């Protein structure tokens, strides 16, 4: 192995990280210093955002107390907080949270499975695509919540009609993500695997599954939002439980404080789920970071 190849220092490897370490004493920012400054900037942004939200809430509270806005319809942060505390204190909120979470998470899971399966089959087999695509295009063009009444007629006012609506919203989204992902799959990667002697199994493992996973994860946040929309809208239309049901109830009572409390709850839940999917995304899609 004593060719010039193995002994020659490579030319174009200087882009690697170690260089930064040797220049610590110079004005060039080191890797850890730049990470520190990124961190500091993030903390700064977070602080400014918190301050802005705090300011907004304070203004709202003041306006409500001074009578600038009608405390009955506009409510106030303190009233909303009280309602929220009350909901958790007497435990009445739990069955509703459970209903909405069950419906949205079940719809999300089933929708992802169906979307992946249908998208993959359509992506790999042309006749299936010809059959499925028009239906899916139609379903994606219309606001799919219009099917809520039909689903309630078919499946009743229980949780299954909400699961079905969340499922419908998510499945179409995931279908297009996966179907498009397979169609966009780099033909050169497939050629490359073929020249190595790889067959369908290798292609699935090395090319399609990672490509599909990337597409699904890339759409996961939107899918989470869709799943909650499906569940809550389903509960709006007809139900006996759930955050959507409570929202309708609050509206019928003209209870703005309760509406705000429920909106706050749903926002917090979705943000939590977003943070969770963000972690999954960052871990699984590490290869996208340069």
């Amino acid at each position, binding site marked *: 192995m004593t*060719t010039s190849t193995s002994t020659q220092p*490579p030319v*174009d490897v200087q882009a690697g990280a170690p260089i930064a370490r040797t220049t610590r004493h110079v004005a060039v920012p080191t890797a850890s210093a730049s990470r520190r400054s990124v961190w500091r900037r993030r903390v700064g942004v977070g602080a400014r955002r918190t301050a802005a939200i705090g300011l907004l809430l304070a203004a709202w509270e003041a306006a409500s107390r001074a009578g600038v806005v009608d405390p009955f319809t506009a409510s106030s942060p303190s009233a909303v907080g009280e309602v929220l505390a009350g909901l958790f204190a007497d435990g009445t909120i739990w069955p509703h949270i459970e209903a909405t979470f069950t419906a949205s998470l079940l719809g999300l899971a089933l929708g992802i499975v169906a979307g992946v399966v249908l998208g993959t089959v359509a992506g790999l087999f042309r006749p299936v695509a010809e059959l499925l695509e028009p239906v899916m295009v139609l379903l994606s063009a219309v606001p799919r919540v219009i099917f809520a009444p039909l689903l309630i007629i078919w499946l009743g006012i229980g949780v299954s009609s909400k699961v079905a609506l969340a499922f419908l919203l998510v499945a179409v989204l995931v279908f297009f993500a996966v179907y498009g992902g397979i169609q966009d799959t780099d033909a*050169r990667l497939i*050629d490359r695997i073929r020249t*190595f002697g790889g067959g369908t199994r290798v292609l699935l493992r090395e090319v399609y599954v990672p490509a599909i996973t990337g597409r699904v994860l890339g759409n996961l946040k939107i899918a989470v939002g869709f799943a909650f929309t499906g569940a809550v809208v389903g509960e709006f239309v007809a139900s006996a439980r759930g955050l959507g049901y409570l929202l309708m109830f609050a509206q019928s009572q003209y209870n703005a404080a309760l509406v705000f409390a429920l909106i706050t709850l749903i926002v917090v839940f979705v943000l939590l789920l977003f943070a969770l999917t963000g972690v999954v995304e960052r871990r699984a899609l590490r*290869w996208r970071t340069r």
Partner: protein
Amino acid sequence: MLHIDRLQLGYGQAPVLHDLSLQVPEGQFASLVGPSGCGKSSVLRAVVGLHEPDDGAIELDVDGRDVGFLFQDDALLPWRSVRHNVALPLLIRGEAKRSAYEQAELWLERMGLVGFGDRFPQQLSGGQRKRVALAQTLAPRPRLLLMDEPFASLDAIVRRRVTDDLLAWVERDDITVVLVTHDLEEALTLSDRVHLMSAGPYADIVASYEVPLPRPRDLVATRTDPRFGRLFEQLWSGLAEVVDGGTDAAADTAREQESAA
């Protein structure tokens, strides 16, 4: 090593190659040059079975597994580590993961990429990715190496270094090579024989030039050899004729070449 006999091939109704014959003996470094779109790449794709020929025969003296193919684009799996990418051809032929990864590390080392195994392709520069692709292609120890404009996307300096490295391995392991390129200088500096293709459709080989320069070759010294200049002129006028004057004139040149040789 590679015998192509009266190869015919097209894309749908559009004919590309017509009665193309090519012999590449073992250990030879052959280049295919010709106008853009004449079907140079299709020849290589047909050899590895990525494009089904309409007629003709392609024979290899080695098993299909012993054929390596270096693409113009590095075509690395973006979601796999550099190490996994290099090990991939070995894994596909059933080697244990551990040994495949070990060999991958060795080839990365040979390509000057120590410590890059855990990175992802997108985290590397274009030259580094090309080296990874080269490591990936050489790791299964091909006897026949097909290359389709492998260095077209690299800047001049990186290109020379990577080419140097490649040439060292080809000469060391006595690998038979077929290089497709539109760069006449590259073809002459690297090859033992340069085949000139006519403009398509119905492209075939109209002239072949022997490059009698000594090996191992030094890329710079080769270019200053007086024979290099003469060959370059011949090849250049041959290509000009193919592009401007149709295939007949070029075919005449080819015959003159053959009788002179």
